[in-house]
């Protein structure tokens, strides 16, 4: 009996660890690795990536490096070098410019839009996206794949161009939508890109039912082509853990906000609830971790709320610092106004730290029961924060129950569902792969 050749997927994305700004990169990695382990050959291409990731079935590369590789004689058939290799950098693209870079050049029509995107992805985001699309299309003519899987809108123009050029079926993966990121200030051009990609795609992956509903209701995407693929924790969490990394009683009374300082993430709601908590628990400390366009405004708000002694703005944290802060905190609060998933909640539980989730989030679908509040209900948020700070039994219960729920999530399981979707799509393509 003949073995079917392995399925080849060309993934187009914008972030991949270690250079990441938020959940997108981690999710991209989880999915790519999960698929590779499930026997799919994954080539993950970013506009720029100054490392080379090489694992069985998985290759991650910046587009310049890929270009060089595919133009080498016999490259298409040749397995990539076995050892990790630092690849050359395309100096024109700086999507991972440090967040500290200021002032940010924003997209002209989205001046009030959250800007960590812009910060992360470099200067003129729109032209970088278009440039990436042109180069991917050009380079895509040199490789073979069975389908394209693109993560978030920045890679959609590239994916659409290549899909049109090669006739490969397209899957798009929505880790967030423009409505989540910008609310009423949504950039019409980005919305148009998202809508077109979802409409043309054979399958749309959404990170939660919450996002699926946004796609149906606000984008008018056909419900039956949208599949929910939940994110998962980085490493399988042993469930349920009775012993925690650091006992609650030994932790400083830190309450953490971790995310871009952007409207979507609700840092202002965090501060308003914190002001209530500080009145009743003067020892509590509030750590605002992350950066973004709202920073100055939030610092002023903290002063206005009388939180000068209580709040610390920690700025953007690298992966190691995130783990360290979460591992010491007593609580993570995620008061997002709109949160397609909320991977940080899984990270906090992984570090043994309880979470309060926005009811406007996707992650609450996989963490139930859990402590949840509407982002605007500052009294409820404060009530929950005070209780978790006060009662270690409650904190511990939240962690052990949350970790038990995490045990049901894995990238491998999510990747299996994606692989099944690929197979369905290809089966529906006459003559491509019988």
């Amino acid at each position, binding site marked *: 009996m003949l073995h079917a050749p392995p399925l080849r997927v060309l993934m187009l994305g914008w972030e991949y660890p270690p250079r990441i700004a938020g959940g997108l990169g981690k999710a991209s990695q989880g999915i790519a690795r999960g698929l590779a382990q499930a026997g799919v050959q994954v080539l993950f291409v970013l506009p720029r990536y100054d490392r080379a990731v090489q694992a069985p079935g998985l290759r991650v590369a910046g587009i310049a490096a890929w270009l060089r590789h595919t133009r080498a004689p016999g490259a298409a058939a040749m397995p990539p070098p076995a050892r990790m290799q630092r690849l050359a950098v395309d100096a024109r693209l700086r999507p991972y410019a440090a967040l500290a870079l200021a002032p940010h050049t924003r997209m002209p029509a989205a001046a009030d839009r959250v800007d960590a995107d812009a910060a992360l992805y470099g200067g003129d985001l729109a032209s970088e996206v278009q440039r990436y699309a042109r180069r991917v299309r050009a380079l895509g003519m040199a490789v073979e794949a069975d389908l394209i899987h693109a993560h978030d809108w920045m890679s959609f123009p590239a994916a659409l161009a290549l899909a049109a050029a090669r006739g490969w079926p397209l899957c798009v993966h929505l880790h967030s939508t423009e409505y989540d990121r910008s609310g009423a200030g949504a950039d019409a051009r980005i919305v148009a890109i998202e809508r077109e990609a979802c409409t043309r795609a054979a399958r749309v992956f959404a990170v939660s039912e919450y996002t699926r509903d946004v796609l149906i209701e606000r984008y008018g995407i056909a419900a039956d082509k949208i599949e929910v693929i939940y994110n998962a924790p980085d490493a399988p969490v042993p469930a349920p853990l009775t012993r925690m990394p650091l006992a609650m009683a030994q932790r400083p009374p830190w309450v953490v906000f971790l995310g871009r300082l952007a409207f979507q993430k609700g840092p202002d709601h965090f501060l308003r609830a914190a002001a*209530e908590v500080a009145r*009743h628990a003067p020892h509590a400390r509030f750590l605002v971790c992350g950066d973004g366009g709202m920073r100055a405004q939030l610092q002023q708000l903290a002063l206005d709320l009388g939180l000068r002694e209580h709040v610390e703005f920690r700025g953007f944290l690298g992966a190691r610092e995130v783990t360290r802060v979460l591992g010491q905190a007593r609580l993570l609060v995620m008061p997002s106004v709109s949160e397609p998933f909320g991977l940080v909640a899984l990270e906090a539980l992984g570090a043994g730290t309880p979470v309060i989730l926005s009811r406007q989030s996707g992650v609450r679908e996989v963490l*139930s*029961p*859990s*402590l*949840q509040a509407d982002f605007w209900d500052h*009294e*409820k948020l*404060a*009530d*929950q924060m*005070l*209780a978790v700070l006060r*009662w270690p*039994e*409650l904190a*511990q*219960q*939240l962690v052990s*129950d949350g970790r*038990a*729920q995490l045990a049901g999530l894995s990238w491998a399981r999510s990747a299996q569902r994606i692989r099944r979707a690929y197979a369905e799509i290809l089966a529906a393509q006459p003559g491509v792969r019988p």
Partner: protein
Amino acid sequence: MSLDICFYFQVHQPWRLRRYTYKDIGRAHDYFDDTANAAILRRVAEHCYLPMNALLLDAIRTHAPHFRVSFSITTTALQQMALWAPHVLLSFRELLATGAVELLGETSHHSLAALHDADEFAAQVRLHRASCARWLGACGGGFRNTELITCNAMLEQVAGMGFESVCIEGAERVLHGRAATRAYRFSAAPRLVALPRHYRLSDDIAFRFSDRQWSAWPLTAVRYADWLQGEAEASATPGGCLGLYMDYETFGEHQWADTGIFDFMRALPGELLRRGCFRFVTPAQAARAVAADAERLDVPQPLSWADQERDTSAWNGNAIQRVALARCYAMAGALRQAPGAVAATLREDWRRLQTSDHFYYMATKHRSDGDVHQYFSPYASPYDAHINYMNVMDDLAERCGQRR
């Protein structure tokens, strides 16, 4: 062979708490959600108490003197009926006046006092007896503790208060292979007759009746009577007794009228009596027939009718439940003996906070039992139930002069 059938219905409504946040502590002392409690009581009265009472009254009269049932009604339910649906009290009184209905004793506030505070347990059993006498009439010699929680430690106390029988879950853990279809005595208090609940046949009505996935759906009175007849034929000795104990809210509230539950219950007494091998009894009648040297049941670990575990984990299975219980019963010293009207108000609030439902809402079991807990809960999560409860406890402690 013949078999005695003992129907026992539990009537209970808790005083559900309102949303009570840190802002209320020290400022507002109204803990209970009158709007929700009144609405729920009136709804249950309309869907269950009134139509089911009418159905039973009709059955008692139609089959007189052969059809009998028993009830226990918590003081917290009686209080709310008196406030918001007094005609329900009249309807229960009418049932009791037939002489075919026995009222059982229990704790006034559907509490877990039996597990935590023997003095409080005794005080609540007396209080319950008094509230029954005030609103309904005299209790008989039967006793059932909250959610059928039973353990050796409480039985001696129950016997000492003059009761003759105790309803108990017919769990394998205490029966050890013996039949659930007869009465026993307790080794911890041989004066007390143990009347086991047949949980499978009870839950066929209480839980499975409307389950369309169930192989026996739709359950008819004839089919159910066949099952009971099977039990009668299997029962080796004469004088067997089969306990069918369930929440009264099963009828019309948990199982809606459109499931056919009322038609089923209307048909069942006649269907059983027609067969000639069944007799309906109340716990008092059942206890009278039990010999002094009947076999003994030992209950070293608390037993209940709740969840798969049939233990007390529905109320004290996790850390947040245990810390809330400890907090609640730590107030006993400050409250039980204090004289005066203010103390009486505080004591009543405290007792309403002892109701097992508050702790049930805090359960974090994940399995099918978790859904049952969530069905009854007014909270978004067990953690919110805990937070609300602890806030109220903070205020109560302050009112009692305890520092937070």
